């Protein structure tokens, strides 16, 4: 018995080793492989799984859109290289915007850490240099948190990226490269991926005007801009205005290999993504975005004292129609605080 346990442990260790070499996540491999084993062994498996279950929520960055997270099997891998493609150089705004919104999501979990943006001189000349004021307004990234590195040659940019990818002191590394240079091959991306895995920090590889080619990145997303919805006012959408940034996202490659196309909208006030549905589901989507908080708050000792799940609105929320009653509601933590003592009594 003990022998089999030891042997199994060795097998798992080897599997993890293989998974590490192959660049896949060990828990993904271990779980299905262990399933058909007999009940005696299942005890061992549950122990292994429990250890991994603790690691799981941390391994993925949920994007916050259910359908997309499901297609990516839980979100974007956090400790990995992720490719974000733009089909043309003029899509640089959308590609950078999407990467920055992901960075913004990461910064929600690790506030205060700096972000390094590496680019070649060519891309900064062709697509524009990141503008700190705009980044602050749209993604909540403070200028003090930003570091830029501009390298005249691709080799240098890759070197900087490799050095940066292993730093745990950075929240994220963004490497922006144009076209399909020969140097950015499987080996170079594998190096980046391995370092990102070791450091546990994401590296976003933005590729402008690039053809998909084999790389070590587990996920490839193709981003284009989508027409924005008009700005919402209390009197309804304001015709002719340009609302929140919207992206059309296509999964080019992922662990689950599920295809999918999504239209996401970035909410700069809450720093979160919303999915925008197609026209046929527009009304349903509208209901979803409406504040579901009842106009009159429930009494504390009522039948259903679930915490109200209203969206907590940041102050300059221009885009969302706010019901007049919802505006008078206290924010979520306050609300639960005043509810709990009553429920006790």
């Amino acid at each position: 018995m003990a022998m089999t346990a030891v042997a199994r442990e060795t097998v798992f260790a080897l599997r993890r080793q293989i998974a590490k070499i192959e660049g896949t996540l060990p828990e993904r491999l271990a779980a299905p492989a262990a399933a058909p084993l007999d009940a005696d062994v299942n005890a061992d498996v549950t122990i292994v799984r429990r250890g991994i279950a603790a690691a799981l929520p941390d391994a993925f960055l949920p994007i916050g859109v259910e359908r997309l997270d499901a297609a990516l099997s839980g979100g974007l891998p956090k400790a990995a290289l992720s490719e974000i493609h733009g089909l043309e150089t003029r899509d640089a705004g959308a590609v950078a915007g999407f990467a920055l919104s992901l960075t913004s999501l990461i910064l929600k979990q690790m506030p205060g850490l700096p972000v390094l943006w590496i680019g070649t001189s060519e891309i900064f000349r062709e697509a524009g240099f990141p503008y700190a004021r705009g980044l602050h307004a749209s993604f909540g990234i403070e200028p003090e948190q930003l570091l830029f590195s501009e390298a005249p040659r691709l080799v240098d940019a890759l070197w900087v990226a490799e050095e940066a990818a292993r730093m745990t002191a950075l929240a994220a590394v963004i490497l922006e490269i144009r076209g399909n240079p020969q140097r950015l091959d499987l080996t170079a991306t594998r190096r980046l991926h391995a370092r990102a895995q070791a450091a546990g920090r994401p590296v976003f590889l933005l590729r402008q005007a690039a053809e998909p080619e084999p790389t070590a990145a587990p996920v490839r997303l193709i981003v284009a801009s989508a027409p924005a919805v008009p700005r919402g006012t209390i009197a309804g959408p304001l015709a002719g205005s340009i609302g929140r940034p919207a992206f059309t996202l296509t999964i080019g490659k992922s662990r689950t290999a599920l295809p999918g196309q999504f239209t996401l909208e970035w909410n700069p006030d809450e720093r979160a993504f919303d999915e925008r549905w197609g026209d046929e589901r527009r009304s349903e989507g509208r209901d979803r975005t409406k504040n579901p908080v009842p106009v009159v708050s429930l009494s504390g000792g009522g039948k259903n004292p679930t915490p109200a799940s209203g969206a907590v609105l940041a102050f300059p929320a221009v885009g969302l129609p706010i019901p007049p009653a919802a505006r008078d509601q206290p924010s979520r933590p306050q609300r639960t605080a005043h509810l709990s003592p009553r429920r006790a009594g």
Partner: protein
Amino acid sequence: MISHRDRNAQRISALDERAEALHLKRDMGIADARAMHPSIDIVEADPEADRRLLEGLADWCDRYTPLVALDGADGLFLDVTGCTHLFGGERAMLDDILSRFFHQGFDVRAGLAATPGAAWAAARFCGDCIVAGGEEEALLAPLPLAALRIEPATRTSLESVGLRTAGAVMAPPRAPLARRFGALLLLRLDQALGRLDEAVSPRLPVAPLSVERHLAEPVTLTEDIERLVGMLAATLKTDLERRGEGARTLALLLFRVDGAVSRIAIGTSRPMREPMLIQKLFHERLAALEQDIDAGYGFDLVRLSVLAAATFDMQQADLAGEVTDDGADIALFADRIRARLGEGAVLRPVAVESHLPERAVATIPFTDAPRRTTPPKKPDRLQAPKTLFPPERPIRLFRSPEPIDVPATEMPEGPPLNFRWRRALYRVTRAEGPERIAAEWWRETGSDEAASTRDYFRIEDADGRRYWLYRQGLYGGNSQMPPRWFLHGVFA
């Protein structure tokens, strides 16, 4: 033989021993010299190159003393006070200098004395002699007046009254001499005799700390140099610890066997004293300079100097012996990047108070890691005023706005209907604006172009891309120029 042009005639400015043997002299016309010896080889003088050579030699002389000064076009002053014992005494040091120069192919005269003036005279007029303190007078007395470093005009007038040696000037009463020949004469005399101090101003600032290692066998491999840097830095560490400082600027001097000196400087964004880290930084720098540093026959002296130091903040390590400071990691990372790719390789944006979008953010080279705990902000004038609806700003801005062709606008003051940018046509579906941003009148702009106001529009094209355009100038305005359109940035 080297010629130079003086008063419209080619003259000899310098000549070698073999030319001297032919009875050619300085300042002789080239035509005369040619007439005497048609086979002589004449080279045009190149004072710039001479200067560079002298500077190179001065760099090399750094191995003897940090205080090296240039003296005219053909001399060097070395202040060896306190340095001679490192080379085994004055005579040994002088011999070492002379033999090394000789092996490099230079014909050098040297003199060593207690005053710069006496040493100058000794080097030029008696050759390779050492003048002990107090013997300056005996040395100078028989020498011609030229040994006193005085103007040629003064010298000729002195000679015209029969004062031909330095000794002759020392003897007579001083007041009449000063009245007739100027104060400089007596000043030079006093300086040479040590009655007045004369400061030799060194070429380079003296490093507060430096450590060096003479090598019996020259090194050529970069790895060896890096290892040496590590060893030197370890020595440096104790000195820095004693002073409670860390290095901000470090220079590595590599003295090649044949006299060439390579100077490699690195800057750190935080005071640093850890030998491993210093070695790492030099590793990057040396890797970047691999093409430029020619080891040749090897380096026989390696010196590491601290050019600038700053107070070192000691950090308390936790019980596991680990100092958790992300800022230090980033500072080191930035230093390494900068060591390899240059100062501008890591940039940090800074908000500037300005209305013009391109001026509102400046990027500066990274100096220190952004602190996690920002100090309480004073009423910050650098931040844009907090308005309820802050103006939308793009996420990417072009370094210089790109001109676009706008064939038509709906209204003269309105947004364009379509535009052509980088040879592609874009159809505008929606537009917001204008947001008028005026030029900063309090700034000298120079051109009328830059001084005109801009009307910014936020537009979306048929594919959903969002751009930031502006029109410079007004339709039907006072200016003669028609308004022009530019694309300044892109939105997410």
